[in-house]
């Protein structure tokens, strides 16, 4: 019975997600008001409580992404959720995923502040419930508490920002904000910007507000992690773009701040991703890195817009959106792959995996595509968006050589380079240690391939990055619709070659070059060195018996990076500000404990002083 309910609910999620795709598609071409209804108006006449659903091109983009991810995750959940069916409340996981998708859709569809905050809060709460679903595992409950605390803190700032906007525009409608907010006083706009930046950064897991993310993502079931990392983090980007490009007047320093914040978060997130052992934790840190890149892209676009370089701003905006879509595609694929690994081996640590390439071929294939995409190897999608971001950054630098602020994108370029190198290392590490070699634990040795629905979801998921990478011109053409009214570009301007046709064949060209080049190298080696001579003999182990643990481990693999960067004193597994803050709190508490010394006379003395002070004060 529960099995049938499980499948039916997941299929409902698939249908609902398809509906969201249609809705997003409509919104992309015809922005429209879908639904407006005041609630509780008969009893309490509160003008604030109005549900308003609208679709705009920018929310349409995110809705389509949400729909695709929802379909993939629900398909994946049919196979993945079977192990939870035997649990009490097994079906609640599927219902939770459906509700989670619906609440995220509410965020993207929101047409006023109330609907947005309603969606935001229910989304946070649903994801919290899904994070603590396996609360019997150690650390999960704590991860949930930290997540909930951080996300609530973020909501506080968002509520304040919306309240301020309402105070000075007299409305809660986003349309009114878009019309009036740019004319508000600069100080007020700065306050709104800072508040929304804090709120959205907390959700996006920007360093140093990221501490919930590497805990919450591994704690959740894998298809939930895929949704959280793939699209829930993007709600923060959506909000950020909405506030900075549609409402507030663009300022150069805000773009600079976003660049610095995003770039440092990208590099540090990527660095941490090379150091962790838990597969899903690695991917969580990689999400931090990608959110950093997205914030950086938004900052570059904002900077260019403030410097009145409309075309470049538009291209950077497009690159940011493209990167967001790409990240959603490959990160959900990677999380699904990681879930499949956990499903098949019951192991999470890279040091206990190995040899999966032979035992889990489908998962290996999907993970390989995901890892190639995340490390921006053409023709997969990661390359296209990062290259676009890279080239537009170079053009902005070129256009602003006379301007100090315009040089900030150099920082962004360094960040792109470094994070790219780190991510390549991360991908090599996951694939090399996790999939090749020999199983390092009994779980990895007896790994079994995922069930059929999971395999379908994995293969479909692997198709998406490839398609996104092969047809960049179509994507950028569609994304042009989502540009804010102040920005514009022609599709042929977007590429460095100034030629859309040559651009659309570029991915295939690159594929041919990579494939053909490999073949040429192989041919040359074959001609010059002759046929490979192979001697198969047992590995020499100093006379001892051979163990899987003797091979190169994940810890050893990341050791050189750790050594190299230990010069910069990057705390690998600690907080930058949380530990010191916590120490201050504890020390203060310890100092206050001296008051509580057990002597009756001291307590009397406190009373005495209080009474005298009060008597004098109230006199």
């Amino acid at each position, binding site marked *: 019975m529960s099995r049938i309910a499980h499948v039916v609910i997941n299929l409902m999620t698939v249908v609902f997600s398809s509906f969201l795709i249609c809705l997003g598609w409509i919104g992309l071409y015809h922005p429209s008001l879908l639904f407006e209804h005041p609630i509780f108006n008969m009893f309490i006449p509160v003008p604030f409580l109005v549900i308003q659903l609208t679709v705009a091109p920018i929310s349409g983009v995110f809705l389509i992404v949400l729909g695709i991810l929802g379909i993939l995750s629900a398909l994946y959940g049919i196979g993945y959720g079977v192990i939870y069916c035997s649990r009490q409340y097994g079906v609640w996981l599927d219902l939770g995923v459906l509700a989670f998708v619906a609440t995220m859709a509410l965020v993207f569809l929101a047409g006023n502040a109330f609907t947005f905050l309603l969606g935001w809060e229910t989304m946070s709460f649903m994801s919290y419930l899904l994070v603590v679903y396996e609360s019997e595992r150690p650390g999960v409950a704590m991860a949930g508490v930290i997540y909930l605390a951080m996300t609530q803190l973020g909501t506080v700032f968002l509520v304040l920002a919306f309240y301020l906007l309402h105070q000075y525009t007299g409305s809660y409608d986003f349309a009114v904000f878009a019309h009036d907010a740019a004319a508000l006083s600069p100080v007020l706009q700065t306050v709104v910007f800072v508040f929304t930046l804090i709120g959205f950064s907390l959700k996006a897991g920007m360093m140093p507000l990221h501490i919930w993310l590497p805990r919450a993502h591994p704690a959740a079931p894998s298809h939930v992690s895929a949704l959280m990392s793939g699209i829930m983090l993007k709600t923060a980007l959506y909000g950020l773009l909405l506030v900075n490009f549609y409402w507030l007047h663009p300022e150069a320093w805000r773009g600079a701040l976003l660049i610095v914040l995003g770039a440092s978060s990208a590099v540090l997130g990527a660095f941490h991703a090379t150091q962790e052992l838990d597969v899903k934790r690695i991917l969580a840190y990689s999400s931090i890195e990608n959110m950093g890149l997205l914030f950086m892209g938004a900052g570059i676009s904002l900077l260019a817009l403030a410097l009145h370089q409309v075309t470049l701003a538009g291209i950077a905006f497009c690159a940011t959106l493209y990167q967001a879509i790409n990240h959603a595609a490959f990160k959900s694929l990677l999380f699904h792959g990681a879930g499949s690994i956990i499903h098949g081996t019951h192991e999470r640590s890279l040091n206990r995996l190995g040899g999966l390439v032979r035992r889990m071929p489908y998962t290996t294939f999907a993970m390989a595509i995901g890892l190639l995409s995340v490390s921006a190897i053409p023709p997969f999608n990661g390359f296209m968006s990062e290259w676009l971001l890279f080239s537009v950054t170079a053009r902005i630098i070129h256009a602003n050589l006379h301007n100090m602020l315009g040089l900030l994108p150099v920082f962004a370029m360094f960040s792109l380079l470094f994070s790219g190198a780190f991510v390549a290392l991360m991908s090599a590490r996951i694939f090399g240690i996790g999939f090749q070699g020999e199983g390092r634990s009994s779980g990895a040795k007896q790994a079994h391939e995922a069930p059929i629905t999971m395999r379908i979801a994995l293969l479909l998921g692997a198709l998406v990055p490839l398609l996104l990478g092969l047809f960049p011109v179509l994507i950028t053409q569609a994304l042009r619709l989502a540009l804010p009214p102040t920005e514009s570009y022609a599709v042929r301007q977007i590429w460095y070659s100034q030629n859309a046709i040559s651009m659309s064949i570029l991915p295939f060209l690159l594929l041919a070059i990579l494939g053909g080049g490999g073949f040429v190298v192989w041919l040359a080696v074959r001609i010059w060195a002759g046929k490979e001579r192979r001697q198969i003999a047992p590995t020499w182990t100093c006379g001892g018996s051979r163990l899987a643990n003797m091979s190169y481990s994940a810890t050893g693999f990341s050791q050189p990076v750790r050594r190299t960067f230990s010069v910069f004193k990057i705390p690998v597994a600690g907080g930058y500000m949380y530990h010191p803050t916590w120490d201050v709190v504890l020390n203060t508490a310890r100092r206050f404990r001296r008051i509580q010394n*057990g002597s009756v006379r001291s307590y*009397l003395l406190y009373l*005495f002083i209080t009474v*005298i002070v009060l008597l004098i004060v109230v006199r």
Partner: protein
Amino acid sequence: MDFWLDVTVVALMVSTSWIIAIRYISSGIKWLSFQSLMLSLLTGVLAVETGRTDLFVIAVLTLLVKAIAIPYILYRTLRAVGVDRQAEKTFGRDRLIIAVLAMWAIGYYVTPDFGLGYGHNVYLSVAIGMLLSGVLIMITHKKALMQGIGLIVIENSLFLAALSTSFGMPFLVDIGIFLDVLVIVVLISALSFRMDELLSSMSIEKLRRLKG
């Protein structure tokens, strides 16, 4: 009649100041008895002045309970543990006297002038000064019996405050307070005796180890 009121109030002030500075616990008990006697005299004078019979009863009760019964109980306890016990103080006499003077000053400073033309209510000022001095006794003295004495001083001060503002509390309340005070003193005596037996000292600093 006002002359007698002033005399008794001055006597209250002197006795309170002196209790803080005593050297032996036994003299503290004697001064407490004297203080209560003065309070009962003051109540009697007020009773004559206003002609209220309940104040007479309370004056007699004060005399019996506070001036005779309580000092007697405290004195018996003290005899049981040794009469020549010194009152251990945290500060020297001179400083304590200065502190008490400060208490009187604070008492005078914080008392409201109701603006009814009677000027300052000096009796209330003395009551508040006594209250603060009573707490000061409890803070500065280490012996458990002296805590009891400080408590009675506080009680006396509250009694005086009630008298000075509204000619005493309702009769039943006063009776209840007398009973309470009596019970508290009995308890303090019993517990001090027990402390002396167990710890061979009445210093409440030894109770620190009870902290959780």
